[in-house]
Structure formats: structure tokens, C-alpha cells
């Protein structure tokens, strides 16, 4: 289970809305128990409404900051401004990290929908999110 503090959950939704119609992305860091503690908004280098890619320099900066805090990068998140909160074929194809949680913030419905998934070798598993 992923535990996301209410303020960080709010930041994700607000950032997705502010970034729309482009996709936004970033990391969440925390403990191995799935408790999120730190939010790292990253640049979508694709600057696209349909794709996202992280900037490697920003990835390492987030990694080093999280490590210094005794945390690890446990979530890769991105938004779906116009489609549901489920991994697309491209999301699944490009999900190379078998350990990280993939969180999607969808704005396609009247209210934002946030869901988390583990993706291992093309197999998608839903992961429960608790707002703390």
C-alpha cells in the first residue's frame, strides 16, 4: 500500500491541473514501507500532452537529496490530462523499474482520479493508496 500525505496528494492534483493540457511528472520519495515523505516535481522534457520523459540530471538530483534524507525514490508519477488513470500501452512498455510504484493522476473525469500501479515485465497490478 502507498501512503501519501494529504498535502502531497493535493500538490499532485494541483500540479496536474496547472500543467494541463501537458502531462506533468515527478518522483515521490519515502520509506520502503510505502510511506511517502518528499515530493520532487520534475520537468517533462517532452513538453507534450501525450508523452512524458524525466530529465536525467533532475532524476539524479532527486535521488541524491532523497538518499541524504535517508529515503528512497518509491513513486514515479505522471498525469493523464485527457485519459483515465490506467497505464497506457506506452506506459507499460516503458516501465523498466520493477520496484517503483507508478502513479497516474487523471483529469479526464469531473473530479481528478489518482491511482497507483506496480508494473513488472508487462504485468500491471493495482496498488491501494491511502491518503494520510
Amino acid at each position, binding site marked *: 500500500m502507498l501512503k501519501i500525505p494529504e498535502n502531497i496528494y493535493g500538490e499532485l492534483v494541483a500540479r496536474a491541473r496547472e500543467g494541463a493540457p501537458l502531462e506533468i511528472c515527478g518522483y515521490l520519495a519515502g520509506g520502503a514501507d510505502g510511506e511517502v515523505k518528499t515530493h520532487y516535481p520534475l520537468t517533462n522534457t517532452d513538453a507534450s500532452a501525450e508523452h512524458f520523459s524525466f530529465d536525467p540530471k533532475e532524476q*539524479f538530483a532527486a535521488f541524491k537529496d532523497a538518499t541524504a534524507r535517508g529515503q528512497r525514490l518509491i513513486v514515479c508519477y505522471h498525469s493523464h490530462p485527457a485519459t483515465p488513470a490506467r497505464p497506457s500501452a506506452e506506459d507499460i512498455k516503458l516501465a*523498466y523499474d520493477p520496484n517503483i510504484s507508478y502513479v497516474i493522476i487523471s483529469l479526464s473525469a469531473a473530479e481528478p482520479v489518482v491511482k497507483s500501479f506496480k508494473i513488472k515485465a508487462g504485468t500491471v497490478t493495482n496498488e491501494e493508496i491511502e491518503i494520510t
Partner: protein
Amino acid sequence: MKLTINGEPKEIANPTLTVTELLKQEGVSMPDMVTVQLNDEFLRPHQYPDVTVSDGDTINFLYFMGGGQ
């Protein structure tokens, strides 16, 4: 040799190890899909099979993150 891999100190039995071999040892099945920093310097994927790590090195690797709706 002693390495620090993604922030964790590790003892590696093999005295000579390329970055490709190290990534495989760390369970990375597709080395081209990770970005590597060796002692804070970025490596390019074509360097992974040729660059060897040394005792005391710090090596960090992060998976490519991307996708689309």
C-alpha cells in the same frame, strides 16, 4: 572491492567488473534503459561494456522514466 551502489555500501567479490556486468549483477535486465553516474560523472550507454569500476567507487543508476497517455 568495496563499492557504494545507489547509496548502499557493497562488497563485490569480483576484482574486475565492467559497468554492464555490475548492472546485471544488480538485476538490471536492460542496461540501456538505465542512466549511470560513476563518481558523479554521467556515462553513456555505449561506455557500459568498457568502463570498469574500482575499489571505493560510487556508482548510481536510475531507470529511464517515460510514457504517455
